[in-house]
């Protein structure tokens, strides 16, 4: 059995707003093994970033449990020990806003080294050069500032910054969705190389399922703050069980006939993701579901495992209404 690096159990994050309680993450459970990539997919508003930020400690969890390397990290986020912050890093979606435009690349990469004091002062320049080399950027990039370099290069800097503290776990929050495909390819390949080289574990968030197919080792799909289905990547794409997964998969535009054959038969997508303030009763997907039954609007299904390693939260599979 592989070593579990992160375990989330019944993780909840609720936001109190004027219009009501937003259940951004509502009972999310998953585990991530060492050196694997867990993909988290979902439409906007499904809560995938909330889960990531809660793991990261940006938001304190409302309830539930988060265990990282057998250490409980659920509690007050401001009190997280530095060593833990060093071990969990994040790469944000838009490098245009996650890098300070008034700092040089050198200053940006030096900050984590200063804060965690992992590298003595006289060796920092060397370390920064090494970091740039890791992401295949020339050393003289040190003296540039973010606005003067391209989007792909900026994202490489954001990755280098995440690597600066020698983390073992990195959250990638849509790292390429602001970039063009020709640039995306390079970044994704680099990320995969780095993972092998440095034994990293990734939590990879995206809404691009084709990208997920090539990047993740396991995929979890989220809808309105809950995980609908979770399975190893190959199984997930070959044999999607949840109607929502099928709807998503059949909506992707693809570029070849071979891919077309892999898509589930056309499931016509209907409706939009409802506001998380007004989550429908029962299964939150039932309003859009092509296969809804009477039970779906009454009872929220439990997550069950019809097959080994393949979990789904849907009444189509026996046992989902129990308990």
């Amino acid at each position: 059995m592989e070593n579990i690096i992160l375990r989330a159990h019944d993780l909840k994050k609720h936001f109190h707003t004027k219009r009501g309680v937003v259940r951004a993450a509502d009972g999310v459970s998953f585990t991530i093994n060492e050196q694997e990539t867990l993909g988290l997919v979902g439409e906007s508003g499904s809560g995938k970033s909330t889960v990531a930020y809660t793991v990261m400690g940006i938001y304190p969890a409302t309830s539930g449990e988060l265990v990282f390397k057998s250490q409980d990290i659920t509690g007050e986020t401001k009190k997280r020990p530095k060593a833990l912050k060093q071990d969990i890093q994040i790469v944000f979606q838009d490098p245009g806003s996650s890098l300070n435009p008034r700092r040089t690349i050198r200053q940006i990469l030096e900050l984590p080294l200063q804060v965690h004091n992992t590298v003595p002062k006289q060796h920092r320049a060397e370390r920064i050069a090494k970091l740039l080399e890791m992401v295949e950027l020339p050393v003289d990039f040190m003296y540039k500032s973010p606005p003067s370099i391209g989007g792909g290069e900026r994202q490489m800097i954001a990755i280098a910054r995440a690597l600066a503290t020698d983390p073992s776990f990195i959250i990638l929050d849509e790292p390429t969705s602001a970039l063009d495909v020709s640039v995306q390819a390079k970044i994704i390949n680099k990320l995969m190389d780095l993972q092998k080289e440095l034994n990293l574990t990734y939590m990879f968030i995206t809404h691009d399922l084709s990208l997920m197919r090539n990047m993740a080792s396991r995929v979890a799909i989220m809808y309105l703050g809950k995980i609908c289905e979770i399975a190893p990547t190959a199984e997930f794409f070959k044999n999607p069980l949840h109607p929502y997964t099928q709807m998503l998969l059949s909506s992707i535009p693809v570029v070849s006939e071979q891919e077309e054959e892999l898509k589930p038969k056309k499931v016509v997508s209907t409706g939009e993701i409802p506001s998380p303030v007004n989550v429908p009763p029962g299964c939150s997907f039932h309003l859009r579901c092509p296969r809804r039954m009477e039970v779906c609007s009454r009872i929220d299904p439990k997550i069950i495992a019809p097959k080994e390693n393949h979990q789904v939260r849907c009444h189509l599979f026996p046992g989902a209404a129990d308990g």
Partner: protein
Amino acid sequence: MKKRLLDIRNLEVGFTVYGGYLKVLNGVHFDMAEGEKVGLVGETGCGKTTTAKSVLKILPVPPAQTTGGTILFKGRDILTMSRNEIRDIHAREISMIFQDPTAALNPVFTIGDQLMTAIKYSNLHDGMSKREIRQKAVQSLKEVQLPDAERILENYPVQLSGGMRQRICIAMALATRSTLLVADEPTTSLDVTIQDQVLRLLGSLIQEKDTSTILITHSLGLVREWTERVYVMYAGVMVETADTAELFKNPLHPYTKGLMAAVPKLTGEGIAAGIEGRIPDYLHPPSGCRFHPRCPSVMDICKKEKPLYFDCGDNHKTACFLYRD
């Protein structure tokens, strides 16, 4: 043979900016017949939107400047038309759907105000009464499958979701029964299931009304599913054009090939390396073929001369010296 609707020849457009002159469109050729669905695909900053806005003549002048070429729409040159003529073209001939529906709709007017204005001016000579215009507005909202059309007319854009707003933009573009629809990344800001819905709707409406369409996108997948013919654009030049099926079966230009390889596939065979380098700086564009600094099969001639279109049979043309003969 079908009548030619739009014919762009050798279009050159640039922008005067602080620090110099950006020559963005470097001799764009584009043509389409009536009723055709054409895709225009390329990456950020390649000039797709500049081309589209040139066709509608809505680029701000200055900084924009057209330094050469012609845009013939139904045989008349858009570039030499007067303001009034352009307004008529906007009202009745060409409509555009923009990438961001939030920015395309005016936040301080109701949907009804905006939609009815569009309809009113599209039918200048029909002399419709206010009630008829309103009925037409309701009908066009129903066509894009928006429930409760009467209520939506009274709503402001912020009260609606992104998918609904884009549907309103589509309703507005199609209500006027234009001859040509330019859809500039109509679904980029939407989720994949919503994208699918919006496009299916758009597709069936265009079919029904037999509207000629230009779909501008960076997604090769969308182009493959929604168009009949494709133009691939790179750094202000159309580098390749072919019928959609042919292009996906047999891409010729090194840029098209690189782009196709870089798209992540559902088959999960990994992702190709992508294309080295990045889109050129328009202040100092590369000499000769603008793709040559990134091209894996670059030759000497590419650095010196700008390639013309070489005919590769089957309606397939590409601007690359590899196909000279």
